């Protein structure tokens, strides 16, 4: 069952950011397993359950960077929103860009939320704390099944 999945999919190519985001998750005591993918193509393969991700756990939330190798976050989002039921997956964009063209495009393509990575670690911890409360605890999930 889809709702049994508590995995968080983090699509992020900057290894420092991956470490810091994981550290922030630890600080807030989030126990959800985190799957990290480093480019847009991997993200699509994973979500589609293609090789080498056959039998992967469907995530309950996607944290998506925009500037990624191979396929951008915008492209991943565009692909995701065209899938049968996968399109219901909540996607929170987590990126460095605060350019309005990026923000608007992300919402146009169906992002559920847009967060700009803060420079200070304390601010990142606060952001992750709020993210946990809202998207992982409060938010009611839709049915998402494997296609």
């Amino acid at each position, binding site marked *: 069952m889809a709702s049994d999945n508590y995995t968080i999919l983090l699509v992020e190519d900057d290894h*420092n950011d991956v470490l810091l985001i994981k550290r922030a998750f630890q600080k807030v005591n989030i126990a959800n397993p985190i799957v990290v993918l480093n480019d847009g193509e991997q993200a699509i393969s994973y979500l589609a359950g293609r090789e080498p991700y056959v039998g992967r756990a469907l995530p309950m939330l996607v944290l998506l960077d925009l*500037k990624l190798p191979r396929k951008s976050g915008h492209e991943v989002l565009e692909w995701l929103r065209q899938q049968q039921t996968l399109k219901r997956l909540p996607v929170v964009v987590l990126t*460095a860009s*605060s*350019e309005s063209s990026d923000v608007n495009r992300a919402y146009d393509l169906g992002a559920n939320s847009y967060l700009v990575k803060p*420079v*200070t*670690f304390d601010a990142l911890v606060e952001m992750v704390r709020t993210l946990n409360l809202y998207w992982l605890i409060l938010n009611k999930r839709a049915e998402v099944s494997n296609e």
Partner: protein
Amino acid sequence: MKDEEKSKEQLLKELAELRWLDEDLKKLRQSEDKFRSFFQNSNDAIVIHDLKGNILDVNEKLLALFGYERPQMMDLSIPDIINIGEEDKYSSAMNVLNDEGAVIFEIDFKKKNGILFPAEVSSGILTIGSDKVVQGIVRNISERKRAEEELIKYRKHLESFVAQRTDQLEAANKELESFAYSVSHDLRAPLRAMEGFANALLEDYRDSLDATGKDYAMRVVAAAQHMDTLIQDLLAYSRLSRSALKPGAVSLDSVLGDVIHQFSTDIQKADAQIRVERPLPDVMGDHATLVQVFSNLLSNAIKFVEPGVKPRIRIWAEEMNSRVRLWVEDTGIGIAPQYHDRIFRIFERLQGVENYPGTGIGLAIVKKGLERMGGRSGVDSAPGRGSKFWVELRMKGF
């Protein structure tokens, strides 16, 4: 005798009639001479031809223009002296002439030596006795045509030049945009790492770091944070310079509402008192830019106070005909008059970062923002007397 007398009388009468006739003839000759001299000496080249185009008379100017001798010219007709292919133009002009009595048309003529020239012909119908003839005034318009062509050439050149420069500018602007994008995205990533891992050192290794070690790590954190503010301010400034503003009616009340909401934490922290004298008028501007402008003015008013002084800030509007001046008055440290222009320049700072942290970009954003909205900004201040910053904009509807 009677007959003789009669004939004498008759003779005298006839004599008198003859004298009058002679007078008339003289007058006629004079008028003919006058006309001929006018015709011959005219500055315009004139041709007189019949309705079929046969040349009846020409003046010296026309002979000079075409390069013919008079006898040669008198044997020609109009179709002989126009360029091949221009016959239709000529006959349609003659049709107009028939209908309306006058016509002005342009046509290419051919000189005796074969050289072509463009001309403007102004033709009218003259009635001589029962005959109708055409008088045509021929003006060589080569110079005018050349000037016109030159003008068209220049215009085309100018158009292509402008198009080329526009392309270059657009390309430069695109490059600048992608540069700014990469600054916002890529340059900040290392800062997050510096700040984040220096913080991790302070937390995870606090037992093994001595006071100096901790101080160093804290300096890394502070420097990274300062660099981030610098990048963000620079980005805001460059965005202001390159993005197109859409000026419209903006409520200053709602702008100030947004700004004060945005600063609520800083206002509380500094225990600042802010008095906005509402209602503020509506102005012509761009909401987002005005929020940026007043964010910088308000943050300065909160920041630049003597240590221990609680900032008191008053914001009010002064209406001046079609314009509005908005004042932000503070109880801060004030600015000496010789620096009043300088502080609006980018990267200019009067205070050390130790006492008053900042990037030196805030007031440059204020100035640039106002310029982009067709407004002005300035300050009225002296050390120890606080500062009154003002921005001036067009009132809504003006």
